[in-house]
């Protein structure tokens, strides 16, 4: 048998009907994650056609995008941004009840951002195919699952048949050699990678991140890396599961327990690219060269070290991006005045991210005039963070500690920045208007976000981590 890549193993194991020149493969889906924004039209379609869900037991739903992150009002109502947002949430509650889908709704202790709770519950597992009507489904690739975003029509396909029509993508190996320097995070690394390969550098590919620097990452960090694969245009991102993965998953609610666990782990150990397996393309990244990295334009490929000069525009598009951001060519992003800081999103809202931000903030106050929002990714993260007292670190520093949700990552729940404001954000997209009409987004790590809140300007977190707080 010829050597196979991890992707090929995952792909081959899920073929229901192989692809031909005329027809795509029919690919089986093990886990279908659902949220309120991209599912209502699919449920409606099922209703109109009189169809049932094929495998409701393979679905997991949550509320995250349109949900308020402020606590309930005194009268028990929730502070929704508008009636439509509330109706969308109610619609998912109704749909899940009617079709028999497990929903982590308002009353669940596990509600949270869909890509945070899938792994937390152990629903995300190595070897699976995982889809969601959401492009950051690539997050789950951190576990060695083939995970990708789909549109609402396809959400309907999976609901009715548990399958998708898919052409096999190409493979791109991203070797991250060496070691990340002290104080440099997974977010800096992935921004650096996207800045290197470009916002469309991964189009048509499934990425496999490999090499010493990747193996050294924790699961939280691996999720941050895989999460942003889509920002390079990739279909999915993958990291082979290893002891780090198995230790992290053990004992979680959805994974097998006891003897079945050991047998499952044995099976999972085979999920790695064979020696001699070939990729359609390979790229090498030197981890030791990564610095605190931020974006300076209006897509995630416009990323550079914060102390490096912003490159001059080479075309009208880049000029427009620099104008929009008010970024000055030849000058570094470091030192740019900041209005809002957001720590959250499926990229950076897990416990380790909050710790990273809290370590910078502890015992300090954010700068006058800066607004800082910290939004945990899930109820579980919120509980853990509060148990450690992180929420007190944030509130003592002058930041707002919120209820879990997507919040200012997509700014459709009322959490948003004003036109012209500059937001240092730990989320994944810096598109024009993503965080509010006219708002300017600079993507960064949680530590950089926290340091920038303290300084009131884009700042290097290492300066705060080395000196002891007063």
């Amino acid at each position, binding site marked *: 048998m010829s050597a196979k890549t991890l992707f090929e193993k995952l792909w081959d194991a899920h073929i229901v009907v192989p692809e031909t020149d005329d027809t795509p493969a029919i690919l089986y889906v093990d886990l279908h994650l659902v949220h309120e924004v991209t599912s209502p039209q699919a449920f409606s379609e099922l209703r109109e056609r009189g169809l049932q869900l094929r495998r409701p037991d393979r679905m997991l739903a949550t509320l995250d995008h349109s949900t308020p992150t402020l606590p309930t009002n005194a009268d028990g109502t929730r502070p929704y941004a508008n009636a439509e947002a509330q109706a969308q949430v109610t619609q998912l509650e109704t749909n899940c009840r009617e079709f028999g889908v497990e929903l982590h709704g308002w009353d669940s202790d596990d509600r949270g951002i869909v890509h945070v709770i899938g792994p937390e519950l152990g629903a995300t597992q190595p070897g699976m195919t995982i889809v969601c009507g*959401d492009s950051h489904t690539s997050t789950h690739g951190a576990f060695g699952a083939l995970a990708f975003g789909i549109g609402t029509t*396809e959400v309907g*396909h999976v609901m009715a048949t*548990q399958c998708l029509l898919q052409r096999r993508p190409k493979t791109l190996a991203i070797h991250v050699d060496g070691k990340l320097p002290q104080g440099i995070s997974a977010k800096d690394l992935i921004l650096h990678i996207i800045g290197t390969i470009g916002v469309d550098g991964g189009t048509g590919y499934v990425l496999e991140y490999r090499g010493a620097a990747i193996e050294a990452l924790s699961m939280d960090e691996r999720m941050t890396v895989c999460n942003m694969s889509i920002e390079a245009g990739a279909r999915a991102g993958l990291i082979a599961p290893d002891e780090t993965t198995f230790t992290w998953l053990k004992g979680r609610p959805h994974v097998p327990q006891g003897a079945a666990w050991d047998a499952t782990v044995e099976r999972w150990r085979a999920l790695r690219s064979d020696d001699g397996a070939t990729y359609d393309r390979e790229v090498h990244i030197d981890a030791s060269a990564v610095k605190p990295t931020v974006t300076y334009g209006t897509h995630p490929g416009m990323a550079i070290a914060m102390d490096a000069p912003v490159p001059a525009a080479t075309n009208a598009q880049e000029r427009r991006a620099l104008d929009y951001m008010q970024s000055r060519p030849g000058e570094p992003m470091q030192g740019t005045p900041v209005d809002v800081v957001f720590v959250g999103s499926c990229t950076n809202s897990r416990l380790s991210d909050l710790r990273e931000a809290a370590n910078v903030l502890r015992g300090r106050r954010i700068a006058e005039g800066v607004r800082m929002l910290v939004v945990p990714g899930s109820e579980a993260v919120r509980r853990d963070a509060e148990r450690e007292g992180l929420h007190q670190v944030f509130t003592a520093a002058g930041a707002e500690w919120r209820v879990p949700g997507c919040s200012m990552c997509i700014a459709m729940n009322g959490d948003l920045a004003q036109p012209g404001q500059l937001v240092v954000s730990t989320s994944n997209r810096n*598109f024009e*208007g993503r965080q509010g009409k006219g708002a300017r987004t600079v993507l960064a790590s949680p530590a950089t976000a926290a340091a920038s809140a303290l300084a009131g300007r884009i700042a290097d977190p290492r300066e705060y981590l080395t000196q002891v707080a007063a």
Partner: protein
Amino acid sequence: MLPITRIHSRTAVLADENIDTDRIIPARFLTTTERSGLGKLCFHDWRYQADGSDNPAFPLNQPQAQQCSIIVAGRNFGCGSSREHAPWALLDYGVQAVLCSEIADIFRNNALKNGLLAIVIDEPEHRWLLKHPGIELVIDVREQFIALPDGGHIRFQLEPFARHCLINGVDQLGYLLQHADAIGAYEQRTRTQQEAA
């Protein structure tokens, strides 16, 4: 879906590269539970001024771009989110085809499933079309070429199944449902693993 075999229109050009799905339809409009009526929101923050009037600088607001249902867009159109609201909004706005040298994966997939022709063409032709807005084109989906007014042709290739579905109005969910037996057999075959998982 109704069969789509030919589209005949003048082109309008949106030359920016990396036009993302947030620009096609801003996230704050995604609270809808419908798929219709999104055309008025298409390109919202680019298309309208703060007072709600048309932004004269938006290329599709130009008089010569009216009634154009073919857009020639800068490279990497549709990058970003998986929201199918993007092709729904474009179709409802009157766009029937987007021509580009590179189109983001999920967007292209979503577009074709909704009968919006997301067509990848070679770079030289793409560059030429970007420089010649308002040109009259006929897109022949069956034969996979774009006819230029001077008699020239631009060839393109759609994924064969997507093309088959477009020209015959095939419903892809119906096609998948026909394979229920194969899906059942797959579930049987992999049951131990599935239960373990």
